[in-house]
C-alpha cells in the first residue's frame, strides 16, 4: 500500500517540481503525508521537524478539526485550515489521499 503511494508520489513530485520550488521560495517548507497511515511521504524539512508536524498536526489536530466541522453541519466538509502563531503560520490542506501542510 505505502509503496504504491510512494511511487505515485514520486511521479507527482517529478511533474510538479516548478510548483514545489515556487512554494519553497515563499514558505519555510512543506510536508506531505499519507492519510491512511499518517506516514511521511515528501517534505522539504529535516526528518525530525517533519515527523513532529505529521504527528501533531495531521494525525490528531486535523482529525479533530474535520470531526468538528462535521458535527456543526453534517453536509459540510473541511477544505482548508490555517493556524497562525506568533512565529509561523501553518496552512493545512486535507485532500482525499494526502495532506499537504505549508509552513510560512
Amino acid at each position, binding site marked *: 500500500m505505502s509503496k504504491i503511494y510512494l511511487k505515485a508520489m514520486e511521479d507527482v513530485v517529478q511533474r510538479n517540481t516548478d510548483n514545489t520550488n515556487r512554494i519553497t521560495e515563499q514558505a519555510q517548507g512543506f510536508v506531505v503525508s499519507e492519510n491512511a497511515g499518517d506516514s511521511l511521504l515528501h517534505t522539504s524539512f529535516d526528518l525530525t521537524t517533519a515527523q*513532529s*508536524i505529521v504527528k*501533531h*498536526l495531521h494525525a*490528531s*489536530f486535523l482529525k*479533530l*478539526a474535520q470531526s*468538528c*466541522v462535521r*458535527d*456543526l*453541519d453534517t*453536509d*459540510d*466538509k*473541511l*477544505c*482548508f*485550515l*490555517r*493556524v*497562525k*502563531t*506568533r*512565529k*509561523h503560520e501553518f496552512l493545512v490542506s*486535507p*485532500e*482525499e489521499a494526502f495532506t499537504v501542510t505549508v509552513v510560512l
Partner: protein
Amino acid sequence: MSRSSRLSVTETQRKSTPVVKKAVIRSRSYDGDAFVNLFAHRGARDIMILDSHGVPLRSTCSQRRTFVFVSNLKPLLFMARNVVRDLDPSNDITFMRIRSNMGEIHMTLGTDFILIVVQKLRRLRSSSTS
C-alpha cells in the same frame, strides 16, 4: 439579533481587547453598532466572545446556536493551543481559520478572550475532494 445584544458585544469588545485592537476598531468606526454592521455586511453571520476558559460571554446569535458552536469549537481551540505548544514551546497561537465548503470560522485567541466569527459563503463551492 437584538440591538442590546449588539451593544453588549461592542462593550465587551472594548473592555477586554488590548490597545492595539481598540485602534483597529476605531479605524473602522466609533459607533459600536457600525462595527457589527460592517461585519454583517462583509459576510460575517455570527460573532461570539468567550473568556479565556471557553465560557461564552456575548453573542449575536441565539443561545442555543451559541452553545452548539462553543461545545464543538472549544476542544478544537484548546487542542490547537497544545499542538502549537508541542511543536515549539516558545511559540503561541494567535489566530485560527477553518475553511469548509459552506462557510468559514475565524477564531482569535487572545490572552483575555476568544473571539469567534462565523462567516457564510455566498454560493456553494464544490470541494476538490468530492
